[in-house]
């Protein structure tokens, strides 16, 4: 597999949300608007890239039996770094994502890539894999957020497209997240086969 494929697989072929169905908690929880989805996606991307890099660098030093706790500590550290940085420099975004940032620690995508990819591959491949998977995740979250924001409140990235009272409130609430995600998965699946 060349590096280009390694990068692009995260977008469709092995997209964390649409194909692997990993990381559903933040996916359904934060995507009430496109900007929230993008923010969460990019935060996860950062953690994913950094943890993939570090895991690939130290993989030979970590004894097999303690690799999972070691990975968790590495991931948790980067999540805390993101949380602190966001709180300091992007307080508005931190407010809307709030609770979900610490939950990146238990996002299966991050630990999954550390275990399945970074612990077996070199530094460069792991970096590219992290970037591809992360941006694919961010793309999926942004798409889902955009769909829900559009149908739910008639906006797209906070730009008003139609008046809010005609929006279908259900899309902003939790059930709408499931419905929108279901249709998006079906659509992406169709496109992948075509």
């Amino acid at each position, binding site marked *: 597999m060349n590096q280009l494929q390694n990068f692009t697989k995260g977008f469709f072929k092995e997209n964390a949300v649409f194909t692997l169905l990993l990381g559903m908690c933040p996916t359904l929880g934060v995507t009430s608007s496109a900007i929230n989805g993008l923010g969460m996606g990019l935060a996860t991307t950062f953690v994913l890239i950094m943890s993939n890099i570090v895991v690939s660098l130290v993989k030979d*030093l970590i004894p097999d039996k303690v690799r999972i706790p070691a990975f968790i500590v*590495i991931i948790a*550290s980067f999540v805390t*770094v993101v949380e602190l940085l966001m709180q300091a420099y992007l307080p508005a975004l931190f*407010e809307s994502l709030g609770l979900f940032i610490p939950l990146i620690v238990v996002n299966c995508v991050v630990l999954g890539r550390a275990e399945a990819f970074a612990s077996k591959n070199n530094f460069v491949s792991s970096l590219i894999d992290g970037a591809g998977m992360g941006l694919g995740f961010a793309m999926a979250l942004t798409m889902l957020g955009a769909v829900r924001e559009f149908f739910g409140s008639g906006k797209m990235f906070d730009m008003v497209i139609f008046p809010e009272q005609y929006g279908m409130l259900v899309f902003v609430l939790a059930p709408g997240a499931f419905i929108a995600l279901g249709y998006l998965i079906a659509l992406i699946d169709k496109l992948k086969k075509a």
Partner: protein
Amino acid sequence: MAKTESTLVNMVLALLIITAVAGGTLGMVYKVTKEPIAAAKLAKQQKAILEVVPGFDNSPTDEVYELTSQEGYVLKVFPCKKGEELLGVAISTKTDKGFSGEIKVMVGLKPDGSIINYSILEHKETPGLGSKMQDWFRVEGSKQTILGMDPATAKMTVSKDGGDIDAITAATISSRAFLDAITIAYNTYKKEGGKK
């Protein structure tokens, strides 16, 4: 490089090093971000004060004092003065009656107790419903607005409960909680005789 064996010494050592490095890094980041985080919080507070009691020229955050409400909440009161005259107070109040947890509101009261303005500081209400609080209770020319109301004469409950204020459509619980927070601020401030 050969893979490290899973012996006890190696495992303990590996985890020790990783946690130590992680701890050190976090300590550093914490130190670097401590001030910007405090500044961001303060800026938000100041913006909220400016919004709810405009036109002061003192520094309310320096003259802040605390009042304890009947419910046992410690409320911060920021006196806003122009020259020597007290324009009003910005009170950071809260309630735990929200639909999902605490709601924190900054409310500006004139010295006589009537409401100047308010600003939502923190809430976990349903997006698209309860989260409309920030705009709902200031729509003019309707039964929605609480701006300019004097809780001494007006009934500070939603119209469903016989009050003077229309609740947010489909978010009565959030509306009740919001009014509860305002009422707590008013009662506490009045009980203390509106001093300063």
